[in-house]
C-alpha cells in the first residue's frame, strides 16, 4: 500500500516541457499600472480615442473594486504594481507574411509544436499567435477573407473593423463584470477576433496560441468571436509559458456571440507553466469566458483540457437567451504538485426549451486541490429548460483534494435540472491488475486517466485530442514509478 502510494507520488513529479525562454528583442512598458501606462499602451497600439476612453473607464471602475476571495484557492496578494502590462516582440517593420517573422520566434513556435508552416497549412488550421502582449502572426487570413470570415488580431480589428468591435466588445462580459475582467478591459493588449458572416460555415479550424515570454509580464488578451445567423465556427486555443520562479498573471476575457441557428465550438488546451513541485512560480490564470446564445436555435460549446497554471480561476459560461438554444461544457482539469484549480461553468437559461449539458472531469494528483464550481440557473421564462450535469473526480494518491460546488437556481416549475457526481481513486488494485498484465505503473496511470477523461476528449477536434492526451500523460509523468 505504502509503496504503491510512493510510486504514485513519483509519477506525479514531472517536468514542464515548455519552460524555455526565447531570446528576443522586446519592447516593454515599465512595470506598474496607472492611467499613464494605459495611455501609453493605447498610444503604442495607435488606438482610436474611443478605445482609450473605454480602457480608462474600465480602469476607473477597477480601482473601486475588490479582488474576489470566494474561490477555493489560496495565494499571497498580487501586487498589481509589480506587473509589466505591455511587452511585445520588437517589430522592425510591418509584417507582410510569416517569412518576415523573427526566426527566433518561429523557432519558439517550432518547439511548441505549433506549425505556422506548410505542414499545418495542409492540415487546414488557421493560426493566430499572441506572444506576450501582441499578436505576431495570423495565417490563412487571405483565404478566409474571400468567404467573408474575419480572423485577425484584436489590435487589427480595432483599426480595421471598429464598428464590429464597438458593437460586440463588452456586450457579453461588461467591463464592470468582475475584478479581473475590469482589469483586462483597462489593459488588454491583444487577442483574436473572429467574425463569421451570415450563412458561412467556416471551412477550417481557427486557432490561437498564447505564450507569455517576458519576465514579470502579465498577459491580458481579449478574444471576441461572433457568429451571425446560420454560421458555424470551431475555434481552438493553446497556451504555454516559460518556467519562472515568480508568479505571472494571466487575466483574459473571451466573449462569444451566437446569432440565430449558429454554432460556436470553442476548445482550449491550457498548459501554462504550473509552478514547480514545491509550488514555486507558475501562472495565475484568472479568466472570464462567456458566450451568449443570442439567437434562437443557436449553440455554444466549450471544451477545455486544463493541465497548467499554478492557480486556475475560470468558468466558461453560456447565457441561453434564444429559444431552443443549447449550451455545453466539457472539461478535464488536471492538477498536480501544488496546483490549485477552481473551475466550472455557468449555464443561464433564459429562453424557452433551452438545454445545457455539463461534463466535468477533475483529476487531482500530488498535493493539489481541484474544485468544480458550477451554476445552473433557470429563469422564470425559461420554460422546459433542461440541464444535465455530471462531475467526476479522480484522485491519485492521498494528499490531494477534489471538491464539488454545484449551485442550482430554478425559478420555474417546468425546468428539469439533474446533477450527478462521483469521486474515485486510482486504486492499488487497478494498478496491480495493469502491472500483472505487463503494463508499468506510469503507463497504467495514463491509461486509466485517459479512460476517465474520454468523454471530454472525444469532443476535441481530432488533432487537438492527440495533443491533449499526450499532455495528460506528460503532466502525470513521475506520479507513479
Amino acid at each position: 500500500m505504502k509503496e504503491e502510494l510512493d510510486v504514485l507520488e513519483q509519477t506525479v513529479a514531472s517536468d514542464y516541457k515548455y519552460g524555455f525562454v526565447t531570446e528576443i528583442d522586446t519592447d516593454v512598458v515599465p512595470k506598474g499600472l496607472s492611467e499613464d501606462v494605459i495611455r501609453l499602451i493605447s498610444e503604442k497600439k495607435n488606438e482610436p480615442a474611443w478605445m482609450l476612453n473605454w480602457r480608462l473607464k474600465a480602469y476607473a471602475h477597477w480601482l473601486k473594486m475588490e479582488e474576489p476571495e470566494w474561490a477555493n484557492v489560496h495565494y499571497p496578494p498580487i501586487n498589481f504594481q509589480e506587473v509589466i502590462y505591455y511587452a511585445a516582440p520588437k517589430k522592425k517593420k510591418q509584417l507582410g507574411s510569416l517569412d518576415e517573422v523573427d526566426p527566433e520566434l518561429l523557432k519558439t513556435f517550432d518547439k511548441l509544436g505549433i506549425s505556422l508552416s506548410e505542414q499545418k497549412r495542409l492540415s487546414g488550421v488557421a493560426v493566430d499567435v499572441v506572444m506576450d502582449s501582441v499578436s505576431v502572426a495570423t495565417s490563412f487570413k487571405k483565404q478566409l477573407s474571400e468567404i467573408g470570415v474575419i480572423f485577425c488580431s484584436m489590435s487589427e480589428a480595432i483599426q480595421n473593423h471598429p464598428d464590429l468591435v464597438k458593437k460586440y466588445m463588452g456586450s457579453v462580459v461588461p467591463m464592470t463584470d468582475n475584478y479581473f475582467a475590469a482589469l483586462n478591459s483597462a489593459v488588454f493588449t491583444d487577442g483574436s477576433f473572429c467574425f463569421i458572416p451570415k450563412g458561412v460555415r467556416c471551412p477550417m479550424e481557427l486557432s490561437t496560441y498564447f505564450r507569455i515570454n517576458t519576465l514579470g509580464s502579465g498577459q491580458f488578451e481579449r478574444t471576441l468571436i461572433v457568429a451571425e445567423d446560420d454560421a458555424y465556427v470551431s475555434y481552438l486555443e493553446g497556451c504555454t509559458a516559460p518556467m519562472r520562479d515568480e508568479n505571472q498573471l494571466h487575466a483574459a476575457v473571451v466573449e462569444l456571440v451566437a446569432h440565430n441557428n449558429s454554432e460556436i465550438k470553442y476548445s482550449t488546451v491550457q498548459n501554462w507553466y504550473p509552478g514547480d513541485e514545491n509550488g514555486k512560480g507558475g501562472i495565475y490564470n484568472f479568466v472570464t469566458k462567456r458566450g451568449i446564445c443570442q439567437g434562437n436555435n443557436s449553440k455554444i460549446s466549450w471544451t477545455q483540457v486544463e493541465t497548467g497554471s499554478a492557480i486556475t480561476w475560470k468558468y466558461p459560461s453560456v447565457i441561453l437567451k434564444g429559444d431552443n438554444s443549447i449550451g455545453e461544457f466539457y472539461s478535464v482539469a488536471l492538477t498536480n504538485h501544488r496546483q490549485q484549480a477552481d473551475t466550472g461553468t455557468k449555464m443561464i437559461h433564459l429562453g424557452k426549451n433551452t438545454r445545457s449539458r455539463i461534463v466535468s472531469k477533475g483529476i487531482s494528483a500530488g498535493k493539489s486541490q481541484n474544485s468544480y464550481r458550477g451554476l445552473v440557473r433557470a429563469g422564470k421564462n425559461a420554460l422546459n429548460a433542461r440541464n444535465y450535469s455530471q462531475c467526476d473526480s479522480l484522485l491519485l494518491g492521498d494528499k490531494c483534494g477534489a471538491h464539488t460546488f454545484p449551485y442550482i437556481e430554478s425559478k420555474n416549475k417546468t425546468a428539469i435540472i439533474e446533477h450527478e457526481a462521483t469521486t474515485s481513486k486510482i486504486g492499488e488494485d487497478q494498478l496491480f491488475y495493469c502491472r500483472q498484465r505487463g503494463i508499468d505503473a506510469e503507463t497504467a496511470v495514463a491509461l486509466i486517466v485517459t479512460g476517465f477523461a474520454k468523454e471530454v476528449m472525444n469532443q476535441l477536434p481530432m488533432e487537438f485530442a492527440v495533443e491533449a492526451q499526450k499532455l495528460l500523460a506528460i503532466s502525470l509523468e513521475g506520479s507513479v514509478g
Partner: protein
Amino acid sequence: MLSIKNIHASVEGKQILKGIDLEVKAGEVHAIMGPNGSGKSTLASILAGREDYEITEGSVSFLGKDMLDMSPEDRAREGLFLAFQYPVEIPGVSTTNFIKTALNEKRKYHGQEPLDAVSFLKLMKEKMQLVEIDKSLLTRSINEGFSGGEKKRNEIFQMAMLEPKLAILDETDSGLDIDALRIVANGVNKLRNKERAIIVITHYQRLLDYLQPDFVHVLVNGRIVKSGTKELALELEEKGYDFIKDELSLAEAV
C-alpha cells in the same frame, strides 16, 4: 520452469506461508487445494509480485531467473499470468485497448515491434473463438458491469491473448454456475500445451473434473501437507479437508 523453495511470507506481521516448496515443469498442470485461509491466494499474490506481502525467507526462480527481484510487470512480460479471483474494473478503458496495451508492452520488452491494428484484430478473432467470448464484451470498459462469469471468461481471454508460459488461475471457478464453469474450463484446456505450465488454485474439486491436473497439492495452514495425483482431489472431495487435518494431528501426536 518454476521453482519455489522454502517460501515464508507474512502480511502485517502475521505469518501466512510457512515454508512452501514446489517444482513446476513446462506442460504440467498443478492444482493447489486447501481450506479457506490456508494461504492459497497469498501464494498466487506473491508469485505475481503483489507488494502487500513480506517475504521473510526462501526463493523463487522462474525460467532460471530470480523472480522475487523482478517487478510485477517484468514477471508478466517474462510470461507469468495471473487470472484474478476478483478482476478489477477500469472505467473508460476498453478491454480491447487494455489488452492491446499489455500485449505491446510485452512485445517491447522482448524487442519486438508493436502489433499493427490488422494483425491485432486477427489475433483477437482467433482467440475469441477459442474461449467463446462475445465481441460486445471487448468494446466495453474492462470488467465494468460484467457478470461474474463474464469477468472470469475475460481473464481466460486475456490469457489466450498474452500466451503466458506460466498461468496461475486463482479460484477461477468461484462464483460460476455450471455452464460458465464448463466454458471457462474448456478455454483453459484449449490453452494447455507442452510449453505452458498451469497452476490452478481452487477450493473445490469440480473445476478439476474438467481440467484433469497432473498433480494435486493440499495447502493447510501455510504448508503443503500432501501432494499426489488427481485421485487426491477426489479423496478430498469425498472426505473433506478434515481428514487431512486429522492425519496431520495424528502425525504430530506420534
